[in-house]
């Protein structure tokens, strides 16, 4: 009798421990092609200028324009003559999304690394140092018609995708996991731009309103969707990681003005005091409808554009003017309907908005309560993503190229030049 109980019991215990389910998913989808981490860290090199293909973030310093080629590298444009910009070089930087420049050192992201590049000699741009494995894991764009296969981060970064039949084992606990996003860098968008030729050893460049990196004095800030990554650049050639700081959810853009940092999130604008840069202090929030929302700030007013649709939430498309005179209690002054705004920029009383299919719009914001009554110009055929107004020249990156406008006379804005995107 005992043998009928003892033996099965032993067998039961042995079997249970090995009884694991196996769930396999099969589909045609985006399958990753990896680049090893070793290769990634040997990959930055300067090559001959190439045409714009998939331009992303825009950055300006001195007389040079830097245009991110999404996940590929960085175009360098000599803009000494805005009427005749010259595409002079390209730096291959796998995984780049944004950049910021202080002095003659350019900080950028290369997938999960923060990289410092020496740009004092634009014919010999080279890597100075990098902080490895400090930024969120990101992937290149994929074919949205197909699902995306699981990514094994141990194999390296995803250099590209191929569409193929994917068969993958999946885990049993399929509760949504948010791994945190990453984008780019911005700069002190309100910073002053130094003049003169070449990339000077002084000053901070200017980025667009969609930027996610910012430089304030000797600190470089970089945000992802939830976290502010803080680096010391006191020793500019060797940035040092200082701190990760949780800043909420759905953070999209960063704008620094003086000692204040303005974060554009999907649900509002969040303001921090960065007097102590390693430990930002929360000041206030301004909540609005869900949307994609870059922010620019000038004096006591913040200008926020909301874009709805797709991944941006509901269908609200607006320009919101917010008074930050009482920075602890930001107050909406007025909201204006827009078509589908992306980036924006302000210079004095002139506000530039990339309003999606409606084109580039220019407003006089002298009266913040009647902005749309004072539209100075509209360029309906231009689909712009972001703008940088600097020294009477408006830089605008759009889906078909880099535009430059002379707005020294805001009643007669003139196209200076255009660098086409390769088709």
């Amino acid at each position, binding site marked *: 009798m005992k043998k009928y109980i003892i033996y*099965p019991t032993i067998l039961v215990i042995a*079997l249970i421990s090995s*009884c694991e389910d196996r769930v396999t998913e099969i589909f045609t989808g985006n399958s990753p092609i990896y680049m090893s981490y070793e290769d990634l860290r040997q990959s930055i090199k300067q090559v001959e200028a190439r045409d714009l293909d998939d331009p992303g973030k825009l950055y300006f310093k001195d007389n040079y324009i830097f245009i991110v080629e999404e996940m590929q590298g960085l175009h360098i444009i000599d803009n000494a003559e805005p009427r005749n910009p010259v595409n002079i070089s390209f730096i291959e930087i796998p995984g780049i999304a944004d950049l910021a420049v202080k002095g003659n050192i350019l900080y950028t992201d290369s997938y999960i690394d923060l990289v410092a590049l020496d740009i004092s000699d634009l014919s010999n741009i080279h890597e100075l140092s990098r902080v490895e494995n400090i930024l969120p*894991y990101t992937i*290149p764009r994929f074919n949205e018609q197909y699902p995306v296969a699981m990514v094994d981060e141990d194999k390296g970064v995803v250099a590209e995708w191929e569409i193929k039949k994917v068969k993958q084992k999946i885990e049993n606990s399929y509760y949504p996991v948010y791994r945190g996003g990453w*984008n780019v860098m911005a700069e002190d968008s309100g910073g002053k731009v130094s003049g003169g030729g070449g990339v000077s050893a002084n000053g901070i460049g200017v980025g667009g309103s969609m930027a996610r990196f910012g430089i304030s004095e000797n600190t470089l800030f970089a945000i992802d969707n939830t976290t502010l990554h803080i680096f010391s650049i006191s020793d500019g050639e060797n940035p040092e990681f200082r701190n990760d700081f949780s800043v909420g959810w759905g953070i999209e853009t960063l704008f620094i003005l003086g000692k204040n940092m303005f974060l554009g999130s999907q649900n509002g604008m969040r303001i921090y005091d960065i007097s102590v840069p390693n430990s930002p202090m929360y000041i206030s929030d301004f909540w609005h409808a869900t949307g994609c929302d870059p922010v620019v700030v000038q004096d006591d007013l913040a200008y926020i554009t909301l874009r709805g649709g797709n991944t941006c939430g509901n269908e609200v498309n607006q320009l919101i003017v917010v008074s930050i005179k009482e920075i602890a209690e930001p107050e909406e002054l007025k909201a204006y309907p827009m078509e589908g705004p992306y980036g924006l920029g302000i210079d004095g009383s002139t506000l530039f908005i990339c309003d999606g299919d409606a084109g580039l719009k220019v407003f006089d914001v002298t009266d913040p309560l009647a902005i749309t009554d004072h539209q100075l110009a509209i360029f309906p055929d231009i689909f712009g993503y972001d703008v940088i107004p600097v020294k009477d020249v408006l830089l605008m990156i759009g889906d078909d190229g880099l535009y430059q406008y002379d707005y020294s006379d805001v009643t007669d804005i003139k196209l200076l030049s255009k660098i086409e995107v390769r088709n």
Partner: protein
Amino acid sequence: MKKISLFLIAILFMASGLNAQTLIKIGEETKSITTGKRMKSGFDGYFNITDMGLMIGSTDNSRVAPFSFITTNGLHLTEQFSAGLGVGVEFPAGSYMPIVIDLRYYIRNTAFSPFLSIYGGYALPLDDDNGYYGGSTAWDTDGLDSYYEYTPYEAQGGFILNPGFGIRSLVGDDFGVIFSVGYRFQRLYYKADKDRQMIADYNRLTLKVGITFR
């Protein structure tokens, strides 16, 4: 709705089977079965086995021990060998109705006998949505944020194979209890949009208790 109706019909069929077998006298030489004395097992007779239990697996599994209930109606083809058709309800991941062919070999033709068994068949899904999460990674359109995508797979059903062994102990002329242990392999298919499918292989240890009517 059609699946639920099918399931209800199956339950009715099982119930009628239970009633029927109680009316049938099987074996003319049934004796004191509790003593284990040799007896006729009613090889030409009808039987029903109704058992329930757990399909136990590793704690790493999404469902560690889902419930299983199967009732089998069949015939003894010989004194020690029986074959039957079973239906029931199980919950490996969602609700399923297993339909299986059950084969058993009783090592002894006595009231207390070990047996070897194997049953296999197909599990029909009773729910359209089995609440299963597809696992591929989704990324937002700029490729910078990732999360696991919820893919509402529709259950298609799948195959069952369950070898095992157990003990039958008769405690009356027409009644007995059964304890069994088995290994369950079950492959369930799920389908989502386009050409997207998921295959779930379950490897489980089944522990069951049941009753049998002869």
